[in-house]
C-alpha cells in the first residue's frame, strides 16, 4: 500500500516521549538560504561534495558518535573500496556494500567522464551527522566547510545528508 513519506519529526517526538525524555528540539531556520544562480553552464561546473553519513577512508581516524564536529578530507580519486561508513542512526548494510548510496563518488566521476559536469575539486568533505548542538554546526563546522569550498573554487556543491 502506498504511504506518505515517513514523518521523522513526529516519530522522533513519539520515540523520545516513550523513552521518558523531554521533546527533541528541532532546529527552525527562519530565513531561507540565499539563492545563488550559477553563471556557467552545467558542463563547465566544478562540483564540490559534502556528505554527513560518517564517511572516512581506510587510514583515517573514524568518527565517533558523540557530537563529533570534526571533518575529513577525502580525495576524489580515492578507490571506492577504501571508503568506509560509520554512523549510529542509519542501517549501514548498503553503504558498506556500495558507499555511493551516501557518498556519490563514482556517480560524480561518471558525470565528469561523460561531460555532464566539468570537473571535480581535489577533495570532498565528510562529517558525522547527528550532532546535537545546532550551534556548533552553525558557528563552527558549517563555516569551516564553506571556507574549504570557496578555496576549492567550486561553482556548485552537493550536500548529501543522511
Amino acid at each position, binding site marked *: *500500500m502506498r504511504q506518505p513519506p515517513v514523518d521523522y519529526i513526529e516519530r522522533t517526538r513519539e520515540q523520545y516521549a516513550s523513552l521518558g525524555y523531554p521533546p527533541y528540539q528541532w532546529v527552525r531556520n527562519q530565513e531561507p538560504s540565499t*539563492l545563488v544562480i550559477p553563471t556557467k553552464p552545467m558542463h563547465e561546473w566544478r562540483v564540490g561534495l559534502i556528505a554527513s553519513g560518517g564517511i572516512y577512508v581506510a587510514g583515517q581516524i573514524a568518527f565517533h558518535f558523540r557530537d563529533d564536529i570534526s571533518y575529513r578530507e577525502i580525495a576524489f580519486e580515492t578507490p571506492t573500496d577504501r571508503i568506509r561508513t560509520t554512523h549510529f542512526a542509519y542501517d549501514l548494510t548498503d553503504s558498506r556494500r556500495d558507499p555511493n548510496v551516501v557518498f556519490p563518488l563514482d556517480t560524480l566521476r561518471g558525470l565528469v567522464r561523460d561531460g555532464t559536469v566539468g570537473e571535480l575539486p581535489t577533495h570532498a568533505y565528510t562529517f558525522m551527522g547527528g550532532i546535537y548542538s545546532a550551534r556548533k554546526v552553525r558557528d563552527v563546522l558549517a563555516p569551516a566547510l564553506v571556507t574549504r569550498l570557496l578555496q576549492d573554487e567550486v561553482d556548485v556543491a552537493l550536500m548529501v545528508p543522511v
Partner: protein
Amino acid sequence: MVYLDFPLGHTAGRAHDVQSQRAVVVAALRLLEESRQPGSTTKLRQRWSEDDAWKDGVMRPKLNVDRGGGFDDDRVERFATPQYQESEDAALVTGNCPTCVWLEE
C-alpha cells in the same frame, strides 16, 4: 533540495544501481541549474519497493512486555571513541591523520 522517499542511508540512490544513483545526482544538479526560488524542492519518482511497508517500523519503539510495558531503547549507544567499520582500520592510521580536521568548539 531533492527528496527521495527511500529508507535512511540511501540518500544518493540504490546500492549497485548506477542508473538510480545517477538520476538522484543529476536531479540535484538540474535543480541548482534551474532554481529561481531559494529552498526549491524536487521530489523524485523512484520507489523503494512495490509497497511502502518498510515505513511501518521506522523509529517505532518496541513495547517490552517483560519489563512491565516499558519501551526498548533500540538506538545505538553514542560512543565517544572512533567507531571503525573494520577493526583493521584502526591499525592503518598513521600519525595524527593529516586529512582529519579537528575544529575548536
